[in-house]
């Protein structure tokens, strides 16, 4: 089976700063793959490079066996969609939910927009009461649901998730993670998820890559973290830090 996403020696350079240094990975169809690291590790840059939002200066990206060029065409965006970290920044401040969801349908020339918008809102558990609200009339969790609905409305097969819950409260995070798992099951989606939170990544992903300074540190199965089966000190430090504060005796 052709992998959903296959990246080979991907390099991203901003001016003279190398954000991503020859990173390779393969994600099978229907798999959920996690990228973990601290700020500056290049994990978000990798997602953005796949989406066409970061300048690729070396290496290749294949989506479902198709090599991606410099620019992305409409068909690509039917296949790959993204959910951003900050739900306060990813919704246009002057558009209603209705308008936000209509836009992708309009761009791709869908006819049954009314039905699709309704269904998209139902799928993320928002209902029609929210359809004509502006984003400032929504809570953080509701905004992220709208962002997920927008990403799903084009029926992509791959969803890129850039820290989708790090700006949310813990109780809302649980709801959004459950929603993401459910849509993945229902639609047989492939996930590539970025997070700094090891707990979230092991909960959501089967395999993960630990990154630091734009490079791969090591690659793990979700179970490895629970059993502490890690090889690198960096990963071990992250694991210890994720358990909270330890007072020196």
């Amino acid at each position, binding site marked *: 089976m052709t992998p959903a996403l296959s990246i080979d020696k991907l390099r991203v350079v901003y001016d003279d700063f190398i954000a991503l240094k020859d990173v390779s990975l393969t994600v099978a169809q229907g798999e959920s793959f996690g990228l973990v690291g601290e700020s500056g590790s290049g994990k978000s840059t990798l997602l953005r490079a796949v989406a066409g939002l970061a300048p690729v200066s070396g290496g290749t990206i294949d989506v479902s066996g198709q090599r991606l060029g410099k620019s992305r065409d409409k068909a690509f965006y039917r296949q790959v969609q993204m959910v951003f970290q900050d739900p306060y920044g990813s919704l246009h401040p002057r558009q209603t939910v209705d308008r936000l969801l209509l836009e*992708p349908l309009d761009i791709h020339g869908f006819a049954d927009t009314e039905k699709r918008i309704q269904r998209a809102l139902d799928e993320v558990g928002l209902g029609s009461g929210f359809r004509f609200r*502006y984003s400032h009339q929504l809570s953080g969790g509701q905004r992220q649901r709208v962002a997920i609905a*927008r990403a799903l409305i084009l029926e992509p097969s791959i969803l890129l998730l850039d820290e989708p819950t790090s700006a949310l409260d813990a109780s809302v995070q649980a709801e959004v993670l459950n929603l993401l798992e459910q849509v993945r099951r229902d639609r047989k989606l492939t996930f590539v998820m970025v997070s700094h939170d090891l707990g979230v990544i092991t909960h959501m992903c089967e395999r993960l890559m630990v990154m630091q300074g734009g490079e791969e540190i090591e690659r793990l199965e979700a179970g490895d973290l629970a059993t502490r089966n890690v090889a690198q000190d960096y990963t071990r430090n992250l694991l210890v830090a994720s358990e909270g504060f330890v007072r020196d005796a």
Partner: protein
Amino acid sequence: MSDTTMTRREWLLTDRPQSRTQARLGRAYVTWRRFTANRLAVIGLGIILLLLFVAAAAPLLAPHSPYIGDLRNARLLPPSSTYWLGTDDQGRDILSRLIYGSRLTLQVIVLVAIIAAPIGLLVGTAAGYAGGWIDAVLMRITDIFLAFPKLVLALAFVAALGPGIENAIIAIALTSWPPYARIARAETLTVRNSDYISAVKLMGASPMRIVLRHIMPLCISSLIVRVTLDMAGIILTAAGLGFLGLGAQPPLPEWGAMIASGRRFILDQWWVAAAPGAAILIVSLGFNLLGDGLRDALDTRSGGQ
């Protein structure tokens, strides 16, 4: 449902609008309430509405003809019960000329706004979003226009095109778009890398669509504010051209030209120049107050609450 028991205000302010129209009206209502909370802005709006009314109803309001004066009996009369603001050197009623002159003023303002604002908006957003050499070329052109003093450039245009109100309008419009382009570009630069624009890009939208449908609406409010604040300057430039004899030609009752002709009698018959001067002052003030109010009401950053 409780729709029937809802007051109109509740319907507008509801958190759960039922239709596109309701959402849009609700937003407009909130903006309106923010605007009306500013007393001075409402006064400014009042002045502008009054100007519109006077211009529309000029033939009904004017007590005398603005063009034909009574040269024999009514030259340079001080304000009286027949001539409320006195008469000029041609024996024409100044009040009537002011009332008809408001039409010229409005014409200048509206045409300049219609020509200059869209040019500026288009140039600015295109330059800001495209970046690279397109940005460099467009902005250097803008800089060239900005480098000339407005009135001098307008003078040069009028000298080339010939005096007259239409040419004055074109000249003013061509010299006033660069600041709008700068504003639109600055605004575009702040939003072009935001996640919500990235999200639209990820929908597969073309650059054209992103600029026209997603970036321009964000720039428009600050542009409206700036245009409103500039109105006063436009009126003054038009009046300045009129004063120099390069704008509206006699006998048109343009306010600047009226001041120019009143200048000769300013010591003995002060009202001839003072009345159009006061009119310019009041209308300029009106636009400034309105602009200030709009700035607060349309500001998205403070919006929402």
